[in-house]
């Protein structure tokens, strides 16, 4: 076995380009996922009538299917379905990946937010209502802040999972980090060097994300 540092240095620029794409997809994915998940989680916690069932189906479908299948479906099947309805729908693999990750993370974040809201002690809500606060104020000043703090650790966990899941978009050819690694190995045949480097870059990204979440946790007093 020969291990070449030169191969590593030579592959770094291309891999970093892939890492940049991974970062964008992840940021869009968890950003979109937070919007979807927060709204859906609140809707579930407060049992908004019709929406409950829609969201139940959404969460069940996402949790019950592999993300690879979700990506394939969005990138290849959705445009064909659109065509069937007489609409030309074209989007890039990058768009498909970001939307897919947002929808995927959104489902898990829905559950995190719902759980965090429901974990807020009923007695605190009674105390706030007894002070004469409106329902909106109770949500904004008591339930919201407590639930948000409690959801930070599981959210951090989900963000890291989403970052790593973005590697699966290799199946739709976005050109993110994992795919750049795959291409380099095909060109050079140096699997050990390239996959080690890819792994180290992922590790650096997940570690950074974990540190950011830890910092937020520290500053916020988890309750």
């Amino acid at each position: 076995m020969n291990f070449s540092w030169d191969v590593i240095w030579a592959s770094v620029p291309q891999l970093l380009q892939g890492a940049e794409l991974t970062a964008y997809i992840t940021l869009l994915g968890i950003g979109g996922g937070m919007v979807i998940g927060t709204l859906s989680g609140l809707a579930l916690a407060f049992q908004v009538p019709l929406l409950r069932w829609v969201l139940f189906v959404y969460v069940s479908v996402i949790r019950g299917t592999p993300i690879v299948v979700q990506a394939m479906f969005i990138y290849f099947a959705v445009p064909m379905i659109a065509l069937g309805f007489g609409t030309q729908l074209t989007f890039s693999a990058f768009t498909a990946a970001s939307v897919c990750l947002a929808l995927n993370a959104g489902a898990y974040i829905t559950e995190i937010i719902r759980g965090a809201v429901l974990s807020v002690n009923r007695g605190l809500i009674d105390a706030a209502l007894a002070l004469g606060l409106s329902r909106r104020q109770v949500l904004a000043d008591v339930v919201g802040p407590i639930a948000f703090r409690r959801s930070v650790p599981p959210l951090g966990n989900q963000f890291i999972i989403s970052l790593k899941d973005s590697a699966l978009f290799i199946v739709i050819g976005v050109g993110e980090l994992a795919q750049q690694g795959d291409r380099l190995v095909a060109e050079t045949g140096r699997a050990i060097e390239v996959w080690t480097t890819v792994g180290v870059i992922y590790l650096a990204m997940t570690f950074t994300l974990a540190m950011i979440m830890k910092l937020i946790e520290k500053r916020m007093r988890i309750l």
Partner: protein
Amino acid sequence: MSMIECRQMTKRFGDHTVLDRIDLTVDAGEVVVIVGASGSGKSTFLRCVNMLERIDEGDLLVDGKSVRQRSTNVRTLRLEAGMVFQQFNLFPHMTARQNVMLGPRKARGYSRAKAGEIADRLLERVGLVDRAGYFPDALSGGQQQRVAIARALAINPKLMMFDEPTSALDPELRGEVLEVMRGLAEEGMTMLIVTHEVHFALEAATRLLFMDDAHIVHDGDPREMFENPPSERFRDFLRHVRE
């Protein structure tokens, strides 16, 4: 005008009647202690006054406003009564001072400065100025309950309700809470207090209610009732509490 007036007030949970056609009038300045076995409806009664529970039949007037009248604003009615809970229920993400400021700020719409003044005055009164910046988890149970009393007083209610305020406290921490309550009673605050503290009832209460199975079965002077228990049931209850 009476502070609280119940007319045939009835509350059910499903087909379980928890308050059965209660008639009661409490005037301003009265300090009413409510006792009774667990499950007799004491907490539910207090919660109805604050509209945390909806009554099913009859009527309940708080300072002349009916909880059943559509024109009665729930939030306005809740500002009439401060409530103190067995489990304190302080907001864990706020300091003691912020806890006390929340009602004045949000429910009364006062400025931050004015709410802060109110909080400082009330924390002083419950003997906790030096703990103003502490979060609830850094306070003892007795201190937390005193902050909770200050928080309830901060909306300037005409009536204060206490639901077993010392039951969750170690015996040595009860005195400081009862002391604050005694002070309120002496100043003429109208109070409804669910408690099993016999001493407090004897010293501070002007009236004692005994609840049993959804009814107020006795209503009288605390000293007389303790000295001359009006029923076997009440005698049993007293024996039970004193143990």
